[in-house]
């Protein structure tokens, strides 16, 4: 079997941003496993600064969709996981919560793909005004940073897997 046929490699290459979803809930056991995978991501000095808000209430999903320029798919998605960080947990958390939470987000999206779900990473932290809006909507305290939202569900669109290495982006031995 070739290396690229390795099942996990296929899952990593096959994960694409899916923005159309079937009207079908994700069962609780699957949601728990997605979160378990998110929690398995590494964190600086193992400080584990991530929090996860699991949103399944239609009213909240739609409210999240309404005020964000790139989140219309949440009108359709049956599930969203809001990935948050706690920068004041430690000096390491303050420096690296965003990297740690991004690794957790990627685990969530890979696990979703592996379990036949689709999803997309909605950026919040760097989208002007969005962090405060999501905090207000979900009652997230000010001391908690909001990285982004994974909109998840059974996908209603199919995309080709990723392949290849872009020209000029790979360097050997040094820059």
């Amino acid at each position, binding site marked *: 079997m070739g*290396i690229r046929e*390795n*099942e*996990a*490699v296929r*899952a*990593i*290459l096959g*994960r694409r*941003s899916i923005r159309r979803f079937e009207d079908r809930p994700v069962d609780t*056991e699957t949601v*728990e*496993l997605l*979160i*378990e*995978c998110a*929690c*398995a991501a*590494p964190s*600086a000095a193992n400080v*584990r600064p*991530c*929090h*996860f*808000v*699991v*949103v399944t*209430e239609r009213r909240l999903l739609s409210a999240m969709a309404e005020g964000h320029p790139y989140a219309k798919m949440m009108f359709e998605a049956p599930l969203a996981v809001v990935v948050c960080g706690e920068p004041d947990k430690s000096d390491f958390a303050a*420096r*690296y919560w*965003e*990297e*740690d939470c*991004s*690794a957790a*987000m*990627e*685990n969530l*999206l*890979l*696990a979703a793909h*592996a*379990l036949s779900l689709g999803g*997309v*990473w909605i*950026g919040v932290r*760097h989208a002007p005004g969005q962090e405060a809006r999501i905090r207000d909507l*979900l009652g997230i305290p000010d001391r908690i940073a909001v990285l*982004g939202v994974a909109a998840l569900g059974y996908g209603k669109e199919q995309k080709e*897997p*990723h*392949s290849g290495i*872009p020209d000029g*982006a*790979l*360097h*050997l*031995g*040094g*820059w």
Partner: protein
Amino acid sequence: MTNFHIDPTIGFILGRRSVRKFLPNAVIPEMVTTLLECAFAAPSAHNRRPLHFIVVDDRATLDALAKAHDSGKAMETAPLAIAVCADTSIMPEGDMAWIEDAAAAMENILIAARALGLEGVWLKVMDRHPREERVTPVFGPPPHVKIVAIAALGYGDEAKDPHRGVNEERIHRNVWG
């Protein structure tokens, strides 16, 4: 917690642990290419794709990195290192979303490594001083390129149990609390 753990991808996500001791066996080029392909398959905010990767497999440079990085002992035995870098010049002024892209790509590298029978560890570089100032010149990137972190990789010489479970205090349902 559940019986889904038999899915191989889930198994690799949960099984990925930070491994810092490596056997001397080299990683074949085909595997390195696959790791890089997986790195480039990570999502990128607005699909801007600011990432570059530097592959290091010569002992002298690995030793220089191990010396320059204050937590870089893993590179003394690792036969391979991949530096995850971001070209900040292609980003809109003040947009730091490349940090997130870099971290997602790093996680893909580490999970793909695990899936191919390799192990690795994520060594942070950016935002630690003087670490960043010591490590960056070993790679010699132009000033607009940030060395975010390094993956030290190889065949593991230590075994660790997989991750299990969640900390319920950090999971919130619908609203915070």
